[in-house]
């Protein structure tokens, strides 16, 4: 037992850095799903896309601080593609996201030219902060933490503006929002695009953190992000927009520590997926089993078709 604890503690810094980076994916799940009622899977493709764009840019000599925005723009475009497919062809949002993710796999391979590319000598974003030897994880934690703070604060401000409040109305009651003079399509493009951008941001940070990019790096990511979101929402609630915005970050931090603990306790990594799947299932299903049907917004969430 002591060994488990000490392994877990030793893993805390690296897990923390990891979970901060991945919290942007959780945010990318939350925004379309919770704010726009537009359940979306584009992140699974936008995340490796961000990684690929960032890595190739850096390999070609673009500095990290420009490669990352480039990746974010690519992710934004991917999100817009999903929104366009849904709005223009009336294809279900989930299917639209799967289509884009599938196509992005080929795109990512084209961008990379091969399934994986190392990033050894390039200067990563984290190299701009030098706290001395053995402080790698702390550097990552500080830099990504700062980014997270900026993004979180920016979102908080955005959702206090007229346009931010109007965007929430689009998710809550699109017909009403439109009848009150809001361009529903534009809000969806913006929101789903921003989510793609967040996922790409996460991907671009991850490839720099692990010093390589792999075209398969997004696989299975979504279920983790969803589990993290559930945890955050369960702990914080989601009545207020501030709670809803904080939930992805808090959820991510806790979820990945839990995973780390499970691994330290000897759970085979290959069994993680089913454990996570069961966990999400329980989180989604428990309220229904308890008979509180009305409180499970998630399970009966109106899905826009």
């Amino acid at each position, binding site marked *: 037992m002591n060994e488990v604890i000490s392994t877990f503690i030793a893993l805390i810094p690296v897990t923390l850095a990891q979970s901060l980076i991945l919290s942007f994916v959780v945010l990318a799940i939350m925004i379309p799903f919770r704010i726009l009622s537009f359940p979306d899977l584009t992140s699974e493709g936008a995340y490796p896309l961000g990684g690929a764009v960032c890595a190739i840019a850096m390999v070609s000599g673009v500095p990290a601080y420009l490669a990352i925005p480039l990746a974010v723009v690519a992710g934004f475009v991917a999100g817009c593609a999903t929104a366009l497919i849904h709005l223009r062809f009336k294809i279900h949002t989930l299917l639209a996201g799967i289509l884009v993710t599938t196509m992005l796999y080929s795109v990512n391979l084209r961008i990379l030219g091969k399934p994986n590319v190392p990033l050894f000598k390039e200067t990563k974003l984290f190299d701009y902060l030098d706290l001395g030897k053995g402080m790698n994880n702390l550097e990552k934690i500080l830099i990504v933490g700062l980014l997270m703070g900026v993004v979180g604060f920016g979102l908080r401000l955005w959702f*206090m*503006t*007229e*346009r*931010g*409040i*109007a965007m*929430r*109305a689009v998710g*809550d*009651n699109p*017909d*009403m*929002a*439109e*009848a*009150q*003079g*809001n*361009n*529903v399509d534009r809000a969806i493009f913006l929101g789903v695009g921003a989510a793609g951008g967040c996922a790409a941001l996460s991907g671009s940070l991850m490839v720099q953190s692990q010093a390589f990019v792999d075209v398969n790096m997004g696989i299975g990511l979504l279920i983790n992000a969803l589990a993290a979101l559930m945890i955050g929402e369960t702990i914080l609630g989601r*009545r207020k927009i501030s709670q809803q915005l904080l939930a992805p970050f808090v959820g991510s931090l806790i979820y990945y520590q839990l995973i780390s603990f499970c691994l330290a306790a000897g759970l085979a990594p290959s069994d993680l997926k089913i454990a996570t799947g069961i966990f999400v299932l329980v989180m989604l299903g428990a309220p229904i089993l308890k008979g509180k049907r009305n409180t499970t917004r998630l399970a009966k969430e109106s899905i826009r078709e």
Partner: protein
Amino acid sequence: MLRSRPALLDVIASWTDPFLSAPRAADSFPNKWAPEMLNITNLRRTFFAGTADEKVALDGLSLSLGKGEFGVIIGSNGAGKSTLLNAISGALQVDEGTIAIADDDVTRMPVHDRARHVARVFQDPMKGTASGMTIAENMLLAELRTSKARLKPGLTRKRLDNYREQLSYLKLGLEDRMDTQVSLLSGGQRQSLSLVMAVIKEPDILLLDEHTAALDPRTANLVLNATLRAVSALKLTTLMVSHNMQHAVDYGNRILMLEAGKVKLDISGAEKKGVSVQSLTNHFAIKSDRMLLGA
């Protein structure tokens, strides 16, 4: 334009005052020379065109409404009343014909652009509000109907004070629940809120589609009276769909009877004052007789 605040507050204040009865068909409606607010010509809309289920919902309907006129639309189920209102608001595209509001051709204008002209209260209290958002946020959305949402702070202190004051006159206690989610309100409270939201920025045309039909009789009466007061005090150009013949006789200055996607009967002016529920039902009866005879 937003009317000066005191006037608007007076209107709202009088809405729920039990000692004030609803205004009857008033003599104060504008005469025939009032400028036109709504002009609809030859509107046509067919559902499932070219199939066995083909249904002509609007069949070359024309109608014009002067500024400040209040038309009550009656007609049997499926006559095309809701379809007409949907066409005016833009929720439904028409196949043919034109719609102009305040001399602005809106026929092909998307709903969100048309919103600066049109406000609407639906039959279903769920439809007119964002139920997952707070009362204050809903009020803000309504205030933004006629303008573009900007990158400026939304719920400012000044706005909140305004909303609180406007809602306080409803005497439903909503002003103390500004941060309450609308989903927690009763149907009547929500419909009253919808009504305030519809008139907070005076629309060029107000559309009411059986907006009291889902409420219990007492609440329905309250909301109806509130509506009538707002319409008459703000002189709003209004179209109200009702299944209640007595309402058509008592309120507004025009009765528009729809049948099979056309205006079958358009009663206004002196003729409107002489009309009774009996004479209106006779029209319905004549219609069904004719149908029986296959004419």
